[in-house]
């Protein structure tokens, strides 16, 4: 236990003597917070362009006329039109990923021709005020056109549902921030993992191996050191974004704890990857090969909300993807204590397994 703390002090002293690197680590989340403040005006304003999801189940000339209205100037500049299935559209509007979701049920054209009563469904995002109203008015006017042609008979109408407030969409700042902070942690973990090669090249690991100490204490010391770095980075980033970016943080301690544990797990994973290489350069390349694709797919560069659905589904299964998803839930307060406890338990268990595997690798082959 004493040697563990000796290792912690040693690593913290070493990093303190390299203020440039330390500043970069701390600057990443700060820069993100400032950028969000500058770009999104601090209030997390909605984006100027909205998304309209359309599930055209009728797929007829009449239904295409309704959808086609939004391809015309100036609506096409204000709204991006996406065709989706009913289920996907509902999920996405519930997550706040669009301004509105329009369902044109099968039988629309027949109803128009027969002059029968028919209802289109529109779900709107309550976090946006202008675009959902614009969409609703545009659809209503278009439907009125159909109704006007049929001078008699029941009107073709629009049934508008505002999705519950709790499922309201996030601001762009809130959407991007979890990804950005997880990316910062992921990148720092990669940089820290590569440091093991410096110690190996120095001969410090071999020297340590002939001393009456346990390598487990050495590795545990490293984990405590990196956990402290992640705590600083997470704390700085979260506080800065809360103040500068005005991104809601439902539970600051839980968010910091999650980022620290996720950072330690990332570190162990990347440490293992780094130690699997045969040279420092190989380790760097291998680390980047693992880090960047996983960061890209795992929602660290772009939030899942703006990814293609298939990529988001795959990405959520990756380690960073899982971390980002849980972190987002912690930030917006949509995770409950049992769920959070289970996630934290999973993270600790994963880290424990990674610790043992890394320790075996360190002892058996990496030291020599």
């Amino acid at each position: 236990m004493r040697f563990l703390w000796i290792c912690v002090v040693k690593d913290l002293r070493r990093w303190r003597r390299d203020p440039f690197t330390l500043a970069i680590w701390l600057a990443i989340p700060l820069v993100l917070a400032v950028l969000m403040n500058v770009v999104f005006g601090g209030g997390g304003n909605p984006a100027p362009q909205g998304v309209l999801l359309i599930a055209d189940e009728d797929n007829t000339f009449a239904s295409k006329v309704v959808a086609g209205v939004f391809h015309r100037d100036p609506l096409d500049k204000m709204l991006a039109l996406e065709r989706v299935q009913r289920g996907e559209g509902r999920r996405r509007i519930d997550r706040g990923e669009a301004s509105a979701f329009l369902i044109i049920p099968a039988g629309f054209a027949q109803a128009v021709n027969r002059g029968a009563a028919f209802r289109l469904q529109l779900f709107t995002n309550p976090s946006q005020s202008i675009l959902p109203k614009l969409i609703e008015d545009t659809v209503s006017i278009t439907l009125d056109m159909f109704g006007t042609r049929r001078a008699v008979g029941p009107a073709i109408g629009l049934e508008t549902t505002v999705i519950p407030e709790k499922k309201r969409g996030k601001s762009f700042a809130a959407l991007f921030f979890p990804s950005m902070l997880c990316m910062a942690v992921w990148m720092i973990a990669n940089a820290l993992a590569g440091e093991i090669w410096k110690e190996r090249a120095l001969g410090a690991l071999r020297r340590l191996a002939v001393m009456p100490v346990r390598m487990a204490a050495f590795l545990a010391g490293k984990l405590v050191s990196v956990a402290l770095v992640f705590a600083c980075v997470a704390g700085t980033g979260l506080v800065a974004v809360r103040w500068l970016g005005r991104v809601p943080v439902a539970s600051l301690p839980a968010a910091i704890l999650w980022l620290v544990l996720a950072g330690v797990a990332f570190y162990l994973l990347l440490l293992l990857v780094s130690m699997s290489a045969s040279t420092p350069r190989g380790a760097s390349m291998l680390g980047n090969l693992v880090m960047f694709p996983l960061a890209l797919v795992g929602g660290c560069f772009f939030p899942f909300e703006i990814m293609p659905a298939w990529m988001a589904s795959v990405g959520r299964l990756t380690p960073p993807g899982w971390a980002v998803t849980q972190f987002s839930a912690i930030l917006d307060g949509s995770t409950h204590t049992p769920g959070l406890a289970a996630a934290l338990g999973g993270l600790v268990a994963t880290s424990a397994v990674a610790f043992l595997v890394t320790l075996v690798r360190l002892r058996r082959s990496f030291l020599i």
Partner: protein
Amino acid sequence: MIEVEQLRKEYGDLTAVDGVSFTARPGEIFGLLGPNGAGKTTTIGCISGLLAPTSGRVRVMGHDVVREGMAARQALGVVPQEIALYEELSAVENLKYWGGAQGLRNPLLGERIQKVLELTGLGDRAREPVKRFSGGMKRRLNFACGIVHQPQVLLLDEPTVGVDPQSRMRLLELVRAEAQAGTCVLYTTHYMEEAETLCDRLAIVDHGKVIAAGTLAELRSMLEQRDLLRLSGVFQPAAARAAVAPIDHIEVVQAEENLLVLSLVDASRKLPAIFAALEAAGSEVRGTTLTQPSLESLFIKLTGKELRE
């Protein structure tokens, strides 16, 4: 004490150490001498517990390094070939880390740090980051980290590689001081002159095998190396030849009126007899130069090849 019995270490088809045996005693500097790649570092690795021997046995202060690794390591101090220091840390911080790893605690740790800093002459630069040190200073600190805990057994793996002459002299003095304090020192080097001046006993290794072992005198004797004694003065060549002829294993290489060159075994012990015989023959010796065969020449003679760097 270090006891190595039939130590063998294989890496696949390569046998790095092949049946090496020797014993190094407390207060003694035992040298492992050989070219690069001879198996010295692998032997040190097996003794320190870093490498698992393929076969054979190694004991440090009576503890088997495989079965009682922790106990053996507690008795050990290792100064590796590479400068295993954290360059961002100061000399004191490095010593605290390595001393702490050896189990030292304050106030003893603090006292020992002061002591080794004084010994190595680094006291005035103790708080500076090591990256500002010269190569020689780093070597001295590397040594200090190996002795900060006062080990009973000290393993030194080519500790003077790339060191300037002044720092080398200082390091060799430090090694002698450790041995005089009762530490058992195992010193590997490929610098023959270093082994000659420093080591009490030596094992010459090549291709993983000990090809000769003993004191310097024993090695010379074992290899039948002859000293060259050059005497200047006034001689009667024929009388001088006749005067020294009865002395054992002596050969007159050159006999002139002002120079007599003799080749003989263990010349330093025979000097009084030679001087007495020459004086009796009417010769006057004014100058003496004794050239002993170097270990390098012994190695070349023994292996049939030049020392590889």
